């Protein structure tokens, strides 16, 4: 069997072996293969000489270019910073009114803010900043802490009930859990609070009056005599029918029964001042656009 034969089709010789009918030709390795081997090896050699490549026992060859990923990306980031400086500096230092008056700066804001909002804020406040159960809408003009630029900037910097040392802190007490109010009392005050924003309630006038008393005794200290809220301590206005946790019976009962303590992250450290300013202007304008 192991006689070298010539393949009639190609004219090449076989190696003379046969495995269950399979034979193999002894064709030379095509020139192109050698060529590409040479090309790839030479390229690799050059690369090894120029860049970090071969390990030694406690160190490695650093490459003639003296260049590595970490220095490269750090330089890129620094260069990008420098390139953005013309407008980031302005955003970080100028008063908001001046920024709003400068169309060039406002164009920067328009380009920067949407993706920033999408990557950092939309998870809680929603893609269109309209909020959701537990997360306030940022476009309804009902502010816990205030909607002016300085206040929002501060809220973003330190967060609310966040681990930041200067964090704003606020808490809605757990009146039911702590035994301050009974369940019927909570139900009564719920009806009262609902009536303040013109919601339908089944309560009659006497119950509402009772609710008003409970409110004055327990709630007014934070939410104010007229329940218009108090932005110094982040207590919401209860007369505007905008709700973080919901204005229906069940949600409101839970709010008063178990209390609430929203947690808004602090963005200092994660976002720069300029980025926070861009976001502030962005959400203010978004609110204005959506007709408040």
């Amino acid at each position, binding site marked *: 069997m192991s006689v070298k034969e010539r393949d009639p089709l190609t004219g090449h010789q076989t190696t003379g072996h046969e495995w269950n009918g399979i034979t193999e030709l002894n064709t030379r*390795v095509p020139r192109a293969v*050698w*060529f590409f*081997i*040479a090309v790839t090896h030479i390229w690799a050699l050059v690369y090894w000489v120029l860049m970090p490549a071969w*390990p*030694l*026992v*406690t*160190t*490695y060859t650093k490459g003639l270019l003296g260049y590595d*990923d*970490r220095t*490269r*990306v*750090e330089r*890129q*980031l*620094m260069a*990008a*910073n420098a390139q*953005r*400086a013309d407008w*980031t*500096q302005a*955003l*970080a*230092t100028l008063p908001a009114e001046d920024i709003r008056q400068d169309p060039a700066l406002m164009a920067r804001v328009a380009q920067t803010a949407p993706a920033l909002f999408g*990557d*950092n804020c*939309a*998870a*809680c406040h929603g*893609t269109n900043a309209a909020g*959701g159960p*537990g*997360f306030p809408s940022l476009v309804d003009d009902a502010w816990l802490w205030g909607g002016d630029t300085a206040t929002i900037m501060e809220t973003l910097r330190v967060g609310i009930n*966040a*681990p930041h040392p200067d964090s704003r802190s606020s808490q809605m007490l757990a009146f039911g859990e702590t035994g301050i109010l009974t369940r019927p009392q909570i139900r009564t005050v719920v009806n009262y609070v609902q009536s303040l924003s013109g919601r339908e309630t089944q309560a009659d006038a006497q119950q509402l009056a009772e609710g008003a008393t409970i409110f004055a005794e327990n709630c007014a200290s934070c939410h104010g005599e007229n329940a218009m809220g108090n932005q110094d301590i982040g207590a919401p206005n209860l007369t505007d029918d905008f709700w973080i946790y919901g204005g229906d019976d069940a949600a409101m009962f839970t709010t008063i029964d178990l209390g609430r303590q*929203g*947690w*808004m*992250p602090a963005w200092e*450290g*994660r976002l*720069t*001042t*300029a980025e926070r300013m861009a976001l502030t202007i962005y959400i203010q304008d978004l609110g204005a656009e959506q007709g408040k």
Partner: protein
Amino acid sequence: MFRTLLGPFARFFEFHAKTHYRAERHSMALAGGILLAASIGGFIEIAPLFTIDDTVEAAPDMRLYTPLEQAGRDIYIREGCYACHSQMIRTLQDDVDRYGPYSLAAESKYDHPMLWGSKRTGPDLARVGEKYSDDWQVRHLADPRALVPESVMPQYAFLLDTPLETESLPGRLAALRAVGVPYSDAQIANAASDAFGQAMPDSDRAGGVLDRYGEETNLRIFDGRRDRLTEMDALVAYLQILGGLTDLAARTQPARGEN
């Protein structure tokens, strides 16, 4: 020129082909040759990672995962979160701009195994710790599309109702010590109690956690349930510490500009 360039390759090959022709009659010679050829690369690439000093940066402030966080990490592995989420911010400008300082080797030096991932169906999580609230994490895990309508992430609501198994934690910490994580005897012995205490700040077991793992440790009711310790507590505790074991990266990398 071309010919002289290729000469050595061709001659080497001619020699190789001849020896090969003889060797291919001996199965064990073939096997030995294969083993040899296939060992060189792996050895040269892996062994020096243990001997070259600056492979892993020194991070003196590095802390260990608490038993609760380690239990959360084990759940993260169990559920296959790594199939969609990376934990490795590359040295690329857009990675750093989106996720924060690039990841350092030191940050995963106690990660057995590492969870760097190979696919980002969801965002990188290397620095997601404290980016969102516990409440958000819990609700997002329970029903991602309720918070992010575009999400394709699965729901993990059952974690909220599954009590965390803590009995095996001492054994797990001991196994981790066997592979090089410096847990102390006290940490191992109290692992189950510490897991409970970390998620029950009002209980009498909470104090020991701070003693053993440092004042910075997050001591909170992670899942919003005071009545029991759940798997959700563990997973959220783990997510909230991601990127927070050491602040080496933030300290050593130039900030993206303070303005």
